[in-house]
């Protein structure tokens, strides 16, 4: 059974095991490696992408669940790396190692769609599934506020 889906605006067809997680399809088959492998169990958020606009863990999303849907990854979030969150992330010097930050940004982007000006509590609620082992949380919070405020700190 062939699965049709859209990834970052491009139509894709997948003919393999429908149980394969979207994560490994993106990474190993499409070479879209911005979506990271962190835990494989939906516990860390490193693989966060948007499925029809909602944040999901790609490692917990079998391809059959993505059939007929639109997938957005960090590579497709903006054309020139200029999404307000990407700009805020750079302005606040959020990343340390950077590995989790694709997932953090994708999670935050989903948050801003439902809460244009999130409170600290709303940020913590939305972001607590995304682990940053370097501990950049306070700057993540700061950058989300910044993006929500049109780039102002």
């Amino acid at each position: 059974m062939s699965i049709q889906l859209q990834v970052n605006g491009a139509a894709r067809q997948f003919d393999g095991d429908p149980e394969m997680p979207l994560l490994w399809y993106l990474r190993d088959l499409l070479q879209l490696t911005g979506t990271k492998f962190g835990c494989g169990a939906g516990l860390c958020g490193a693989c966060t992408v948007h499925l029809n606009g909602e944040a999901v863990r790609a490692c917990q999303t079998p391809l059959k669940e993505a059939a007929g849907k639109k997938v957005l990854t960090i590579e497709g979030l903006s054309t020139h790396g200029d999404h307000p969150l990407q700009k805020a992330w750079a302005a606040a010097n959020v990343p340390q190692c950077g590995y989790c930050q694709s997932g953090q940004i994708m999670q935050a982007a989903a948050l801003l769609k439902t809460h244009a000006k999130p409170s600290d509590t709303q940020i913590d609620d939305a972001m607590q599934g995304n682990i940053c082992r370097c501990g950049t949380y306070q700057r993540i919070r700061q950058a989300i506020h910044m993006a929500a405020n049109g780039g102002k700190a």
Partner: protein
Amino acid sequence: MNATALNRRSFLGTALSASAFVLVARALPGGETEVALADALNGAAWHLPIYMGLDADGTVVVIAHRSEMGTGIRTSLPMVAADELGADWKRVRIEQAIGDKKYGDQNTDGSKSVRDFYTPLRAEAATARMMLESAAAQKWGVPASECSAQNHQVVHAKSGRKADFGELVASAAQQPLPKNDDLKFKAASEYRYIGKGVPITDMNAIVTGKGVFGMDAAVPGMVYASVEHPPVFGSTVKSLDDADAKKVAGVSQTLRIPPLKLPYGFQPLGGVAVIADNTWAAFQGRKKLNVQWTESAHDSHESAAYRKTLEAASATAAHVERNEGDVDAAFSSAAGTHEAAYYAPYLAHAPMEPPVAIAQYQDGKVTAWAPTQNPQAVQDTVAAAVGCKPADVVCNVTLLGGGFGRKSKTDYVAEAAMLSKQLGGKPVKVVWSREDDIKFDFYHSSSSTYFKAALDAKGRPTAWLQRSTFPSIMAMFDPNARYGGFSLGMGFTDVPFEIANFRAENGAAEAHVRIGWLRSVANIYHAFGVQSFADELAQKAGRDRVEYLLDLIGSDRNFVTNPPQMKGFDFETARLKRVLTQVAEQSGWAKFKPSKGHALGVAVHRSFLTYVASVVEVVIDDNGKVKIPRVDTVVDAGLVVNPERAKSQFEGAAVFGAGIALMSEITAANGRIKQSNFNDYRVARINEAPVDVRVTIVKNDSAPPAGIGEPGVPPIAPAITSAIFAATGKRIRELPVKSQLA
């Protein structure tokens, strides 16, 4: 250029081969002998580094020879070189070095990249700058002393003439090398970047998902491998049934990795690899393996029982590491004594990127791509694993998705190389699952520390006895090692309290799992024990904790720690007291009114030559849940080249330390590690981490650069438990806090 220079140039990898002008390797000043954290497998001192070149158009190419795992070092060290050269940062290209001894030590741990390479990089840059200045002077017929490099040009101020570096490259290459003694460094006031900082070079790549971490590397024709490791350290494959595994779509075969031999070092653990055409298929195949394992001497290893052996060793006389005065006599004549014991568990590193590597074995040589802190150890480990020379291993270093010490151990890279060799040279990407990472780490030691003090009328110690027992990192390199070695110099034998009678002892312990260094290493449990005990004594004396710590540290004095952390660096008590005093002021310590469930805690510790004090505010609810609204940290790390990145390290250290204090714990039963993923190996999340970490870097440019990445961690746990006591009256003597307050 002379023959030696050309010959050396031919050794350069692709990074500099296109450069028109490559500096000649030379011995440079500033080499020091490291005692603490010396890599036992790679003891050779750095020598003859080659770090920079210029393209014909004047673009400055700087080699980043240390690994980027989040400290910003891939930016900060090239920034130092660029500044000394007089380069415009916009015209600097950074190239990541492969593993090669010519760069000096590349093992990116011990918080020593800037400490060790600030001077060598400036020396090489100053050499290049003087040669560019000579070239301009020759061109204009003026003395070189009248020419100076700034903003990518050499300027002759008297005549107003200017020449871009690009115009001077060819001629500069022909200039004689200045002697080391003749090198002229810029004045501090002339630096445009050092002490001010620049954003990390990988920022855009990271926020757009284009950065290449080890997990993201790919080479044509590669296959994927997932390795089933022995569940107990030291066991080996007894029997294997891989029929079902090979039925998984995408799985091609399984391969054996031979068991490790003594001494363990960084060798692969051995086991069974499933080879597949994508990562997921390899993981699925793993689940279908049926492997029987041999018995191991470590089958009975169990954390609670092991803890008792550590505590028993710390409860009795042990190996004396430091001894001043007569502790026993002071105890027998003391009016009062106090004693306490503390325990801290194994910890896993758990970098967000699990271990992963690609290797290709061809014609007796190996090319590897790896997120490694230590590419030269990759060369050594891979060479030993496949039977070639270290020089025949090319280790390309990717970005690291976190390291924390895990990725200076190179077992996962050797796995890829061994498998590629077995597959006749096909490139292999080994991907560890998170479960592999948690269950097969080189663990931070579990530890028991014991303290006893004799007290005078003011509650100040007249004698101090401390014992520490923990499985040693040294056991990885010497199977008979039972004592702590260099770990004892980390917050134990260097306790800076002014006490006439002082004895430090180290109990013997056998290692039953792989032991390795984790961000700040033994400082974690030593600072926890020492600072907690000081906190108890202050409480017993009814004295303010900051004032009491200042009293314990005592007079301004410099001393050499034994064993010395590093040659040439005294322990300066005035600097320790200054950060403590300053953090008290910054946090409003004196004015803060604690209430039930709401208090401040404090701790101060020097590690990696850096002086750090933290005050932590805790709020504890009726269910015993600890929140940390604020951490104040004051740091004296001497000269700091990139203060913004330094601050970020101390912010992160507060989060890392909070995880250690509150929730992180690895335990073993039947020789097996019980935890497997972030559900049961807990690290701090955004809603659990300190909310507002306020870091102040003391400006102290006259002191040499000290550590940044690690020294923020040790004070956090004892400051948190100090605050918990002040808030609840509950003394935490065991980490993590977990449900102890419920």
